[in-house]
């Protein structure tokens, strides 16, 4: 990379280590040496893990898969902020050029009542699946479907649905919320389907079932802090929460 600095940096990491769900965890300190600014944050953790393995120590467990910001698997709180706080960026897309030599970096798991820690930075987010299972779908059968152009969807509505559908289900909104609420996540699916003719038929049942599941899974209430939107790597907007509330009231009125 012609115009890029090739200077490497040395960093001090403070990483949450926890052997298992019932063990007590604590922050451990590690040195990350000769880190290139072109590395991604997870590649930096890979490097630290390589040195740990060479010493016969247990490497840091963390979730990741696509490493391109779309699967929603990666989940680290960096310096107190889910995904590290760079605008519209998952932690796997965060690059080391946003840090400088000598920095201290704190790395912790998502923390929320509904997301128990499995090991180190890995948490159990199956509650998000439970919310979708409660009603985050249209009840269409495989096959026997009318033509895709049978119901017209004007571009603004299709775009609105797509904006909501950007959600990658990472759970950063929950981790960022002081109440541990999954309202942004839930509202994104409710809003997407409510905006489309294919989803309208079940809108009332859906919003009731999904908000019910939200409570049952141990997520907190939404008290309009909007930390969720600030934490969201996909820019999912809190306007969808307002939409969920409207759908909820409509369902009550029915």
């Amino acid at each position: 990379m012609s115009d890029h600095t090739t200077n490497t940096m040395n960093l001090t990491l403070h990483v949450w280590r926890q052997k298992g769900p019932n063990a007590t965890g604590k922050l451990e300190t590690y040195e990350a040496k000769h880190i290139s600014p072109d590395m991604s944050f997870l590649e930096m953790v890979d490097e630290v893990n390589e040195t740990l393995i060479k010493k016969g120590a247990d490497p840091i467990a963390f979730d990741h898969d696509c490493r391109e910001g779309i699967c929603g698997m990666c989940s680290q709180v960096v310096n107190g902020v889910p995904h590290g706080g760079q605008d519209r960026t998952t932690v796997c897309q965060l690059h080391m050029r946003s840090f400088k030599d000598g920095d201290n970096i704190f790395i912790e798991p998502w923390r929320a009542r509904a997301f128990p820690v499995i090991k180190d930075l890995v948490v159990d987010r199956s509650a998000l699946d439970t919310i979708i299972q409660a009603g985050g779908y249209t009840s269409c059968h495989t096959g026997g479907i009318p033509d895709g152009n049978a119901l017209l969807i004007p571009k603004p509505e299709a775009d609105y649905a797509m904006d909501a559908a950007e959600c990658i289900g990472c759970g950063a909104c929950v981790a960022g919320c002081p109440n541990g609420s999954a309202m942004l996540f839930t509202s994104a699916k409710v809003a997407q389907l409510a905006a489309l003719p294919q989803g309208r038929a079940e809108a009332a049942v859906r919003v009731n079932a999904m908000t019910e599941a939200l409570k049952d899974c141990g997520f907190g209430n939404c008290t309009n802090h909007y930390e969720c939107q600030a934490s969201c790597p996909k820019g999912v907007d809190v306007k969808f929460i307002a939409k969920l509330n409207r759908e909820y009231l409509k369902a009550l009125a029915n």
Partner: protein
Amino acid sequence: MILDGKCPTGPIETTWDKHRFDLKLVNPANKRKYKIIMVGTGLAGGAAAASLGELGYNVEAFCYQDSPRRAHSIAAQGGINAAKNYPNDGDSIYRLFYDTIKGGDFRAREADVWRLAQVSNNIIDQCVAQGVPFARDYAGYLDNRSFGGAQVSRTFFARGQTGQQLLLGAYSALSRQIKAGTVKMFNRTEMLDLIVIDGVAKGITVRDMVTGEIRAHMGDAVCLATGGYVNVFYLSTNAMGCSVTANWKAHKKGAYFANPCYTQIHPTCIPQTGDHQSKLTLMSESLRNDGRCWVPKKKEDCGKHPSEVAEDDRDYYLERKYPSFGNLAPRDIASRAAKEQCDDGRGVGPGGRGVYLDFAGSINRLGEHTIKERYGNLFEMYEKITDENGYKRPMRMYPAPHYAMGGLWVDYNLMSNVPGLFVLGEANFSVHGANRLGASALMQGLADGYFVIPYTIGGYLAGIKPGDYSLDHAEVKKSIEDVKATNNKMFALKGKKTVSEIYRALGKVMWENVGMARSDESLKNALKEIPKLREEFWTNVNISGEGGEMNQQLENAGRVADFLEFAELLSKDALTREESCGGHFRVEHQMPDGEAMRNDADFCHVAAWEFKGVGNEPELHKEPLKFDNVHLAVRSYK
């Protein structure tokens, strides 16, 4: 042995309808008595599990991620094809069929490809019904674009996240079935062996990735929808967890592996920056609709800022070499052309491994706003990774391993040669021949899952007695013991190398010798190096921690161990196939102008390999390919 794909005969337009009618049906009341094991819940497996559950079968589904919503299908950007002909530009089922056969360089079965083209239209309808927010125009109609190698606009898309939206559609259908109790989902569970009893697939052995428990799951049929294997190159556009493990374990239990040498190198990926790199990021080839590929004509210009290279000093090499397709030439051709320019010393960026993809002309013509609307998320991704602004300065691109056309051999019913073992999606070899066209993998995954397997698996199940298996069978116990023994063996090594070090070395051997241009010499070299790396792994690898807990090193080690065996088969297949076709380019077999030269007389067949023990010569079985509907011709994109 000559293999039979069991394709229906008669006029091609009628084959699938006739076959569906001929298939035996399972009585609706009996369906719940049959248990189906579905390994993988990406587009193929997710769609299949949801559809089979809805039909009333009892499904157990597995994935290694923490949720089925995260399968690597999620990363597909560009779009999905269908023969709807909405733009009225001359598309038809026949044309989609024809393009796929030709694009695959005449190395796929006609009947399978016809079926794919036929059901493509149902897929779009299905996804719309699920609430997939495809792009639409202001009047509300579905929007289309043309995509890599197609001269009609048949690609449907949802911004730059088509795979994500299609997968979330399948995931929602799956979630509905999980809620209904027809599908039981096992997340964070990795298949590590196939259980075959009396020659029939009856179950799998898995490891619970949270507790470390190793156990078996039995069923009346096993489906693998476990994705592709190009992570054998270490660096690829696939997710970190993508592996050949499920396919390889099935291969070791008797399933034939077909055409492993057909791998696709995608032309437009962000170039590597250093040795620390853990994966490569693809930039959708839809970018080639509006971007022009060029390199400097003169070597001395390569170090300059691109804006300082005069227009006359730029070589728009794809437009020059392929005037009629230009920047939209198929992937294999575009990738090789990029490599040629770089090998010629005219590459740009670090190590000279890059070509420019320039949007200046389109931005002038259409405005930055339009380009942003079409590809905004891609430009954003590019900037995050490279710290460069693609609107202001041409992007740098380099080819990277991307897709596996090869996979387990299946017949027309998607059943492997092992009865009861079905293979879906990228994991099978069926429709793309030697090269896959853009936007056709999503189509295949969903075709297999929604519209093929629900019928064909019924035909198999109708002929067997449900519940004819037992966890107490000696084969089940043996499989569990074998998996445990392999893991224990890895822990006991306590060597000096990390898994990643050996994996990286394997990737280097594969990329350099079995990558975009393969020769007799390079392939023989790979076949010499791979066993050495395998030996090193099994004597000198170090894995810390224990098996009875979450252990990501152990997971990774298991996958790398399988790649170390599989890499040899891939190289052997490439050495045996003495021709160039699609993604398989043998330097000895090229036309005077450097184009791929097929050898139809000797290689118009599927090569399906039978496992004969690690390090032993595998046995080759051939399935001859017949072309009754498309004339077997030299593929030309000039």
